[in-house]
């Protein structure tokens, strides 16, 4: 599904922040991405999310060489990827329901075709009674679940999560992990970037460890 071959990345004329990355993300796989701060986790997530292009090497996603894709084609491909940010990035002027339904809205789908689906997912993540609430009145855990719901509503083939448990207590972190595991079982490949060793110890998955820009894989 995702293939990196000798990928390197530098910003401007600075040093390479990622060096010679070669790995694959297989369909239905689950992996943690970890490493010390500044090791390049966020940069790798941005490459996976087609937000930036590599300085060298080859990245193939869903059978496409990303270097040859137009902006619009990358936007279309991005719809097959869900992303969860550490700081949630919910739109404060929209209700929880509208935030979660946003991917469908940008696809141009009519609301009647997805309303039930969104309501069902909100109920599944425990936000059924909060769908009319605006993000500023949601708790941290509720915001995180809304952000996850938005990332998975369009049934992405790949889910990327950047420190999804960074702002929540350990019990909620455990619940969120269970949520990711359920999503993985339903067919979504999952990459969770985290520093949380306790979280990684709770689930047996591949570990992609970044250190000084290089990737080490532990199965």
């Amino acid at each position, binding site marked *: 599904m995702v293939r990196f071959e000798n990928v390197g990345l530098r910003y401007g004329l600075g040093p390479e922040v990622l060096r010679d990355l070669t790995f694959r993300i297989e369909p239905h796989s689950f992996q943690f991405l970890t490493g010390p701060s500044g090791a390049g986790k966020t940069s790798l997530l941005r490459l996976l999310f087609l937000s930036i292009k590599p300085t060298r090497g080859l990245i193939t996603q869903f059978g496409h060489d990303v270097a040859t894709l137009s902006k619009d084609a990358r936007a279309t491909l991005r719809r097959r990827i869900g992303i969860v940010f550490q700081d949630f990035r919910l739109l404060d002027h929209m209700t929880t329901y509208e935030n979660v339904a946003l991917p469908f809205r940008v696809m141009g789908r009519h609301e009647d075709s997805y309303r039930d689906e969104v309501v069902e997912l909100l109920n599944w993540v425990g936000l059924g009674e*909060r769908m*009319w609430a605006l993000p500023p009145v949601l708790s941290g855990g509720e915001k995180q679940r809304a952000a996850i719901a938005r990332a998975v509503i369009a049934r992405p083939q790949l889910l990327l999560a950047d420190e999804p448990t960074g702002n929540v207590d350990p019990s909620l972190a455990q619940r969120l992990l269970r949520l990711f595991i359920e999503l993985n079982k339903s067919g979504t490949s999952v990459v969770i970037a985290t520093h949380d060793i306790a979280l990684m110890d709770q689930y047996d998955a591949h570990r992609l460890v970044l250190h000084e820009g290089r990737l080490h894989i532990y199965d």
Partner: protein
Amino acid sequence: MTDAPDLTASMRMPSRLPPRNDTPMVPKNSISGRALVAVVAIMTFLASLTTGAVMLVRATASEWQSDVAREVTIQVRPAPGRDLDAATAKAVQIAGAFPGITGVRAYTKEESARLLEPWLGTGLTLDELPVPRLIVIKFGENAPDLGLLRKILSEQVPGASLDDHRGWIDRMRTMAATVVAAGVGILLLMFAATMLSVTFATRGAMAANRTVIEVLHFVGAKDSFISGHFQRHFLMLGLKGGAIGGGSAMALFAIAGLFSDWFAGSAGVDQVSALFGSFSIGPAGYIAVASQIVLIAAVTAWTSRQTVNRTLQTIG
């Protein structure tokens, strides 16, 4: 002691209404959006006032010029043994019969004396002074052949000469051109200031929307979809501000025009009318102000689109 009411309780209750997805992508009623409307309104108002003022000055200057250009004066100079009254009557007769002339009026001795009062005082007897007699000739938009009239007068009326006010007209033309050029210069500066203010205010308002751009980008929206939403939103903000500012300027000109009509005849208003005309900017003025509103709104929309594109370039 009672517990404080839970203000969010109603939000926790499931509503019977189905959820709706009708909130606009770009937040309405944001503080930065309102500030942008205010800036656009103020700048459009000032730009519209400047445009209207320049148009008024231009119209008035050309009115002065055409008024003076539609009038010539015959001067009959006295000389020993010359019957000034007969010469004046003869000149009036020739001018009255000349094709293209719509009005001939000879100043009487008393009127000529009144013209000299500011310099020579009252109670003047013109018989004692060699004062020339004046005949004012008016004509329409198409000037008669003044060269021919001058020739006939010089041949048939001794001491008569025709003054076509060319010196005055040339001076008037230069003055009007200078005033209009200065006005256009001020208008251009005002317009540049308006465009810069609107551009920077739009960028300021857009800065508050960076998260919206990022989130739409991350959920797979195409760049054209994002920039289209922002462009429409900011076009509406621009039109709203422009309509407030330009509409106020139009109302001000309309009220000034009405006032000058209502109070026509009073000394003050007549003086002002003599200087500035009717205070009406006319259909062309209103069209110019309306065009400004549309142009300023278009600049607002274009700036927002550019800012979205720049933001999207920095995201990825």
